[in-house]
């Protein structure tokens, strides 16, 4: 519904300065997002979460929505390299930031990210609904701590849940991922 005040402006003819004053600081809906190295132009509602934009506007359905309440980790993506719950951040908040989803991990030639390769080599997840979230957290983990202990890996992955409760194997993925990612270990 338009407010009476806005109608008043409309009937008084163009008053660009007053109009600008009314919406000062308010965000534009049509924005450009940096997703997986691409500039994506997208129409985003003010109240839209990043998970929603990624899945339903940009078609990047690798990012899963489990609880939608920052309580499961399935929606984990990287925002400027930092793992975050995409269900609990407004898309407008991450404007100008680098967003990386599970789709953005592999090289253009199809080479898998070391973390993805580690998961494959160790036999993969059970139902794998949690896999994209876990893999994104592992990517953030190997960046921050390339040589974690199993306990440190468990801490780094403590923001992701696996309802198959296959945590032991997931920690094995994490350790293998660290091994593949660490340049120190390449020739050992």
């Amino acid at each position: 519904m338009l407010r009476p005040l806005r109608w008043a402006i409309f009937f008084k003819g163009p008053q660009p300065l007053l109009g600008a004053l009314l919406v000062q600081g308010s965000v534009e809906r049509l924005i450009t997002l940096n997703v997986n190295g691409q500039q994506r132009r997208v129409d985003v509602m003010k109240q839209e979460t990043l998970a929603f934009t990624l899945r339903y506007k940009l078609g990047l359905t690798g990012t899963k929505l489990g609880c939608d309440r920052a309580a499961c980790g399935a929606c984990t993506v990287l925002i400027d390299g930092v793992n975050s719950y995409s269900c609990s951040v407004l898309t407008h908040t991450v404007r100008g930031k680098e967003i990386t989803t599970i789709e953005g991990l592999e090289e253009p030639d199809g080479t898998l990210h070391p973390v993805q390769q580690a998961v494959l080599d160790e036999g993969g997840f059970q139902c794998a609904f949690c896999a994209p979230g876990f893999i994104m957290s592992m990517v953030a983990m190997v960046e921050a701590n390339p040589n974690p202990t199993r306990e440190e890996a468990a801490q780094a992955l403590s923001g992701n849940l696996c309802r198959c409760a296959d945590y032991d194997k997931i920690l094995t993925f994490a350790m293998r991922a660290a091994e593949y990612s660490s340049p120190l270990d390449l020739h050992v």
Partner: protein
Amino acid sequence: MAVIRDMIPAFELFQPTSAEGAIELLIRYGEDCWVLGGGLDSFDWWKERIKRPTAVVDLVNVDELKGVRVTADGVEIGAMTTLTEVATHPELLANYSVLTDAASQIATPQIRNRGTIAGNLVQDTRCWYYRGGWPCYRAGGNTCYASAPTAMNREHAILGTSRCVAVSPSDSAPALIALDAQFVIQGSRGERVVDAEDFFMRPSVDIERMTRLKPGELLTATHIPSTWAGATFYYEKVEDRKAWDFALMTVASAMRINGGVIEDLRMAVNGAAPFPICLEDSERVLRGQAPSEEIGLRAGEVAIRDAQPLRHNDYKIPLMRSLVRRAIRGMEA
């Protein structure tokens, strides 16, 4: 559990670039306005459609509120500093480790990466009756569902209750109280500074607010004085899971031990009352004493003197006594 609905109801979104600009918006929109920091508390309210702000002020672009600054007489932490930044800051790790211990045990890495220190301090209580939208005292109603005879109140308060028995969920609050921190609040009429222990609202004073922040005001910074720099610290969080959980109870203390005697100390507990409590009586028992199991136990007994359990939370009384004792024992060396 949470019901997933399609979408958060619409609101107008503002992203000011200065604290002043943010406060201007808060005043213009008044009661219907919501300050968005990391969003980890806000989104639950919006998605459940229990709180429906018409205007949201997102502080993401207010750079003056970000970061940890070492000052002449301590450390200043901007409101929008993330919990990860607090937990890993070298100066805080070196001299104020009670705060980094607290911050590093909050929730999960993802939540610490986005959640802010101010958000951790001003977040609303997690009482599920209140969170579930029940019209309790805190929500403006005229009853407390959590203290009813058949209520589930295992996580609720044993001290400081007044109609409302919910507890403050902040883990950083007791650490900041132990450090004698001060909070800077900015409003349209300028700045005011509040001691950490006075910042949290008693339900006997105003049952609908968790802090002394008034509408139109912004918590802009936390100032930690150098009083306790490099002191002997203790922090312990008791929770049901090892991660991702709100505390059942936390204890934080800062101590100066000289010649085998506790010269001075500060001790705070959260999860026991609707606000983090400063254990002044226990401090009095301990000051000037040599730290030991016995004196710790006596301080614990003093701390729980006025405790009144609900049906399912009587375990919190021995828990609190033990936490006070544990903060003292092992400090003999």
